[in-house]
């Protein structure tokens, strides 16, 4: 319990500040319920993932019983050429589609932020509508589109499709960043003798970089994890990791699948944390 006496603290410059009264800690029924529900929620979210990771280290081939700790499934993952091939495809697609989505999304965001024209809000809406279009609809429509224009399915169709669904996320992120962008620094650069291109390279781009990096990480994560759209537009020999995993699961879940999934999870978490850190650093 906190007392009512005011604790005097010396502030940074030595002035006296009354300490705000701390919250009273009560271990009543309400608090018990709160903690229980919170724990239940976290369990609901994370127990399946924890189980998956735990079983990726289980030496038992099948079943839900724990035998002993092993790294053999990871070893198998890294010696399975088909898995490595799928992983390579995933990385190629993610890298190139991130690049494409970031360039197009950023330029679109700059154009929409800086120019005003008739019907602009409608175009703006169309640019981020794909965020809410169901993935299966997008997948099917892309499949039909590629068939119609006669592009055979493979890495190219994957990359085009991934650019299409990642771009709106980049666009949204960059619009938010550009809204706070102080354009007088660009004017200052021009005032000091920099032409448009030099201004972009030396001032605009460095200042947008944190936003570009975080939207790139987001796009990379989205691309890497995508299954539904990839499933429709992938071709023979161009399977990405999630599509490959899905193909394997049809023959039953193996500990190898657990190991790949755990690895993908770790990579995604790393990317998300990196995004958060960059966004946080820019804000402070």
């Amino acid at each position, binding site marked *: 319990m906190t007392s009512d006496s005011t604790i005097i603290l010396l502030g940074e410059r030595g002035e006296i500040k009354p300490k705000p009264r701390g919250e009273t800690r009560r271990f009543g029924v309400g608090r018990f319920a709160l903690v229980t529900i919170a724990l239940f929620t976290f369990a609901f979210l994370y127990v399946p993932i924890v189980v998956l990771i735990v079983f990726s280290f289980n030496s038992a081939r099948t079943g839900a019983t724990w035998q002993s700790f092993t790294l053999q499934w990871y070893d198998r993952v890294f010696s399975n050429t088909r898995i490595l091939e799928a992983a390579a495809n995933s990385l190629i697609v993610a890298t190139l589609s991130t690049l494409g989505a970031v360039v197009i999304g950023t330029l679109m965001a700059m154009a929409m932020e800086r120019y005003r024209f008739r019907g602009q809000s409608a175009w703006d809406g169309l640019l981020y509508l794909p965020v809410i279009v169901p993935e299966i609809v997008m997948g099917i429509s892309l499949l039909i589109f590629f068939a119609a224009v006669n592009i055979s399915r493979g890495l190219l169709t994957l990359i085009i499709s991934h650019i299409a669904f990642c771009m709106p996320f980049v666009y949204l992120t960059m619009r938010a960043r550009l809204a706070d962008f102080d354009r007088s620094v660009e004017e200052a650069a021009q*005032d000091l*003798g920099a032409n448009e291109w*030099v201004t972009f390279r030396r001032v605009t781009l460095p200042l947008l970089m944190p936003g570009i990096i975080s939207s790139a990480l987001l796009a990379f994560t989205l691309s890497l994890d995508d299954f539904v759209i990839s499933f429709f537009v992938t071709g023979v020999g161009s399977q990405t990791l999630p599509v490959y995993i899905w193909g394997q699961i049809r023959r039953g879940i193996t500990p190898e699948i657990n190991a790949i999934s755990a690895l993908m999870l770790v990579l995604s978490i790393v990317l998300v944390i990196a995004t958060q850190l960059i966004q946080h650093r820019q804000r402070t």
Partner: protein
Amino acid sequence: MADYAVEMRDVSKVFGDVVAVDHVSMGIRQKEFFAMLGPSGCGKTTSLRMIAGFERPTSGEIYIDGKAMGNTPPFQRNVNTVFQSYALFPHMTVEQNVGFGLEMKGLSRSEIVRRVGEALELVRLPQMAKRYPRQMSGGQQQRVALARALVNRPDVLLLDEPLGALDAKLRKEMQIELKTLQREVGITFIFVTHDQEEALTMSDRIAVFSKGKVLQIGTPLEIYERPTTRFVADFIGETNFLEGRVQEVNGEFASVIADGGRRFVGRAMDGVRPGVQAVVSVRPEKVQLVEQPDNSPNCYEVRVHSIAYVGSDTRVIVSLGTNHLDVWEQNTVSTLDPNYFFKPGETAWLTFKPENALVLAQ
């Protein structure tokens, strides 16, 4: 070298259906400290931005050192700007900020280092070279912005309310510093401000803007003592207005019959003819309160409404018919006698000399 550092000839700027600058013509002389003064939205900043090249005039032409600017982009004009928000590059150190313009000119590394050093000396920040703008106070950032512009030795330095973000004390210091600096470097300064005291203190000449037009250009003395319009008289300093109709014009002077039938005499300004609506403008410090009427034609009995003792002078508000007038009496006598001053409710005689009042056509 052209007569004018910068000349605007019949320049207008229209944004959509808003006329921001309306047929402005003026010449800013070489090495002049020139202020563009006016309330917000009067067109002063737009004029500055057109000189810098950030905006293109809708019509008219701007000349810098005698050369028509046309569509010359900002990076090809030999003018530099100190922005209201300073617009320092947040990702560059002070040194890199200040050196940016020189780098763009393609100067050698050693030359850049030398001149950046000099510029930082000039604004008294030599020890700050390695800092980033966010690690500095507003006043320091302001000086970096100045150094960054001056280091390029422009023909003209444009300053867009550069002292607006500073606190009152720092602003006073910077006013003096800027004025000194301008004399030292011998560059034309064009200074945008809405603060009339700042403009009066610092400038060689002032252009008073209102609603996109330039109402008057003159020295601080001319602007304060001989405003040609009611707006300028009102905007610069404090003044009393007495509205009426011109009775007669006699040489330099005109008489005005104000409401209540009172007759006032003052200097006739442009457009004052018998019968026109006019306003007599007289500054509070140029009006006296006396106990006995004198022989001025502008002497009337008034009632003291309120008084405020402010140290250097005593500010009295008196009522004359339906008008209230401000009278600032200089405290030329050292006294602790409260009866020395007029008191609210008392009557007194208000008087001012015709040469201290202006008759402005409405």
